[in-house]
């Protein structure tokens, strides 16, 4: 490499055997320590809903005896992404995380549901989209709202659920 030709070896820091076995090599100095810790906490918290998503992959058609389609593998894949996205945004906004119910619709979409008091948030994940329904009563017109789920709208939905 031509770049190497311009490197003056005399200016490089001297290698010290000691540095790899002293405090610099301790776990507390690992620059990725917090990242790893955060990652392991996220994995722990999302473990159960992820396991439920994996379990949906094994369901056959008519799994609910109501004639529902087999959960769509692409929708499951999309749901994995949305689950993490929702979690990240909820935690970043310093709201309390609630584990969702995980199920599937008659069309094979993946359905996440969260309850808080009288309020309920449902998210449907299809192969390439996601929709939400906010529910606060039985009246279909006056006590529900729905729309396309956008990453930018997650915090507002969660704020509504938590209010």
């Amino acid at each position, binding site marked *: 490499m031509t770049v190497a030709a311009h490197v003056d070896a005399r200016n490089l820091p001297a290698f010290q055997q000691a540095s790899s076995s002293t405090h610099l090599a301790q776990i507390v100095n690992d620059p990725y320590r917090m990242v790893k810790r955060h990652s392991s906490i996220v994995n722990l918290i999302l473990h159960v809903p992820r396991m*439920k998503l994996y379990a949906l992959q094994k*369901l056959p058609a008519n*799994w*609910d*005896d*109501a*004639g*529902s*389609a087999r959960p769509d593998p692409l929708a499951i894949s999309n749901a994995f992404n949305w689950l993490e996205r929702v979690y990240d945004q909820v935690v970043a906004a310093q709201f309390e995380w609630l584990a969702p*119910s*995980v*199920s*599937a*619709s*008659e*069309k094979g979409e993946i*359905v996440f*549901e969260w*309850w808080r008091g009288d309020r*309920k948030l*449902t998210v*449907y994940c299809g192969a390439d989209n996601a*929709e939400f*329904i906010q*529910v606060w*009563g*039985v*009246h*279909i*017109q*006056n006590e*529900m709202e*729905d729309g396309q789920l956008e990453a930018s709208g997650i915090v507002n939905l969660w704020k509504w659920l938590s209010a």
Partner: protein
Amino acid sequence: MIFADKVEDEEVLYRSVSVGCFVMSDGVLRLTSTAFNDPTRRPSVDRAKLCGANPASTRKRLTDGVVSLAALSVREIANVVQNDKHGQPVLPYYQVDVIPDPVKDHAELPDNPAHGLIVACPDIDNDRVFKRLKESLARIAETDGWLLEPSLANLS
């Protein structure tokens, strides 16, 4: 189609809830909206008075739970609205109803004189409207309560 029979407002309806359609949340056994999944958008129910008021007869499997709904509560799900692509309401509004649909001599299903259907008139041809209907049905059923709780060993 003409139905000689009619589901009265005061009738109790049973719905079987299979594994995967309920969850324990904050110590409460919750019914998910998927408990009313139906590819034809006409969820099945059984009429209590025609199955000996025995909710166990509605179970499809021994592990299933059974919830109840009053026919009147279902009919009161009024103003089911369908929006156009711009989010504007499109007339007509839907009327939700419960109709008899006895099963007899079906190729795959056992005879069931108590069978009924929750339908909308006109038929719902919009996924988002049906999703709202399922939310409403789940909420009504949860209010009326579980007649038979599902096997918690199968809790989703």
